[in-house]
């Protein structure tokens, strides 16, 4: 919420300045192009679950557009009613919070199917940027950003906890692989890759991290994590706080340089991939000195080069794949995970639709951090739940830990009876 010492006029001025700053470059193109035809509804998982006018993507974009018209167009300035232009009043800002944080995950599916070709998600993010600049990010989401900035990871996991988790995982891995070299490496300079993980892997799902370590060991990879900056997520991207997003990116790239690695590999995380691979260099305003790839691309490379041997019979259950929006629709990584799964599972079946056309599971956009929208989040997963049910799969592979959390909840709520696994876990299970 906005700082108490600011008057409504101060807040409106700050919001206006942020809006003018952020829309130039892309969002304003789209703000000028929307014709409010209303054909976008069925493309949105939130609208499909609850077809109220407020959930229509065009209606969410219109909230941002109304302020754009007020402050950035001639008619909006002098004849605001004609074009539905609105001032940044307290009520309008509250409505904007609800529209851009509470009713949109920024998944981009509506944009892909827009009759005009609007990047609705860019408009929504412009709205988030405005709100972040005046301190109106919902508390749960802001807390996650603050955790990341203050502690280096979004779950505020102390360094000792990471080290002890790495230690016991290493013990288990040595036993499983029968090799002293099989372990979770932390703060080892001079390795080939720096591996970033979702802190959720450290805190709640360490077997995912162990699976990655096991695959790296099998491939003879030289790798390490950093105990300072190992978090692949970037909640500044979600909240719309570009300064925070830039700082989080900078720290990781500095750490990669300090450790002397040749490549940064991103664990299975949709928005983490998008943030580091695509948005990061632009936040920093410079090219990265080293490549940044998804672990999926690395796994595909291992299999293609014969660096790991697998037996798909070890994964005999039917497996389907959920496409995380930020990885696939925004990140362009749609095929490596498929080529990997075709080699490591026996019975792979696609969801329909899939790849760029997939439906958001409902857990993106920082939704998992905003408890006030929890019911809507789970309800909005109804389309995804039906997609999963139609495949008859008993395992859903998803290369995103945020999606995995949401899919676990959907499985319970919609009684899907499916297990959720990361792709690397299936690869590890299939190792010979």
């Amino acid at each position, binding site marked *: 919420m906005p700082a108490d010492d600011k008057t409504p006029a101060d807040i409106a001025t700050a919001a206006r300045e942020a809006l003018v700053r952020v829309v130039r470059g892309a969002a304003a193109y789209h703000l000028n*192009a929307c014709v409010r035809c209303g054909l976008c509804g069925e493309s949105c998982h939130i609208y499909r679950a609850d077809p109220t*006018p407020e959930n229509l993507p065009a209606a969410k974009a219109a909230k941002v557009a109304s302020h754009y018209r007020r402050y950035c167009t001639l008619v909006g300035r002098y004849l605001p009613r004609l*074009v539905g232009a609105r001032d940044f009043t307290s009520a309008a800002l509250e409505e904007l919070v609800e529209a851009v944080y509470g009713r949109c995950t920024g998944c981009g599916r509506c944009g892909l199917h827009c009759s005009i070709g609007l*990047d609705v998600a860019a408009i929504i993010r412009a709205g988030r940027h405005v709100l972040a600049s005046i301190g109106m990010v919902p508390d749960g989401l802001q807390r996650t950003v603050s955790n990341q900035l203050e502690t280096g990871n979004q779950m505020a996991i102390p360094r000792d906890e990471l080290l002890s988790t790495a230690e016991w995982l290493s013990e288990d891995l040595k036993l499983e692989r029968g090799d002293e070299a099989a372990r979770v490496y932390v703060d080892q300079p001079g390795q080939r890759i720096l591996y970033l993980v979702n802190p959720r892997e450290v805190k709640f799902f360490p077997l995912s991290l162990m699976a990655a370590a096991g695959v790296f060991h099998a491939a003879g990879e030289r790798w390490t994590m950093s105990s300072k900056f190992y978090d692949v997520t970037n909640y500044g991207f979600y909240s719309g706080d570009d300064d925070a997003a830039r700082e989080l990116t900078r720290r990781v790239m500095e750490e990669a340089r300090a450790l002397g690695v040749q490549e940064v590999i991103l664990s299975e995380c949709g928005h983490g991939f998008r943030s580091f691979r695509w948005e990061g260099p632009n936040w920093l305003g410079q090219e990265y000195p080293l490549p940044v790839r998804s672990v999926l691309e690395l796994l595909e490379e291992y299999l293609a080069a014969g660096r790991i041997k697998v037996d798909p019979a070890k994964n005999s259950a039917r497996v389907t794949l959920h496409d995380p929006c930020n990885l696939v629709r925004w990140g362009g990584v749609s095929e490596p995970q498929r080529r990997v799964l075709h080699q490591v599972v026996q019975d792979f079946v696609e969801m329909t639709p899939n790849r760029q056309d997939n439906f958001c599971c409902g857990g993106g956009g920082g939704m998992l951090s905003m408890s006030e929208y929890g019911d809507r989040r789970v309800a909005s997963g109804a389309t995804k739940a039906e997609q999963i049910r139609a495949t008859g799969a008993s395992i859903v592979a998803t290369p995103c830990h945020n999606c995995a959390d949401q899919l676990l909840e959907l499985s319970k709520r919609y009684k899907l009876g499916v297990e959720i696994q990361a792709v690397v876990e299936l690869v590890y299970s299939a190792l010979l």
Partner: protein
Amino acid sequence: MDPWLSVSIRLVALLSSAWAAVALTVQVLWTRGSGRRDYSRPAGSPWRAVWYSFTTGMMPARKESARLHAAEFALGLVLHVGVLTCLLGLGLLVASPTTGIRVLAVLRIPAAVALLAGICLLLRRAISPVLRRLSTPDDYLAILATCGLLACCAFLPVDSRGQLVRLVYFTALLVYLPLGKLRHAVFFFVSRGNYARRLGYRGVYPPARAATE
């Protein structure tokens, strides 16, 4: 038409065309901002993506909104093709009245068909509770203005008085074009192209395979 009046109204139409062109160019340049270089390493071809986006990507097979709303999609297409054709015809009337009159005579029926499509879309906007809530007065003004243009082209006689009314209407429409919703005539291309380039750069567009397989 009186030669002096003909020259005058054509000159005013030219000036309003210039106004629309300059105002829209300024808007596009302003919205573009400056120095928006992408520092990430490319994974695909932006231009192939733009080509895809303006061709296959607009087909109902690839665009869910068109597939699920085939009637509205078809009406929209008819309206836009009709408006574009009539604008070109009126442009010809300004540049070369003799040719323009001949072309506009041929365009009467297409303009009437497009007008019908426009009226259907106007009614849809007025009747649908969701669209009514979403709409601003400018949304109605824009479609009324284009329907008026189509009506001029469809029903006005091809005589000097008809020409005068058409040109006056054309001039007024061009003045309004950069100010309200009708500016999507330009921003449609800018917006779609920008989005496609971004997705192409990342290797998202064109899609590797059909998503429904």
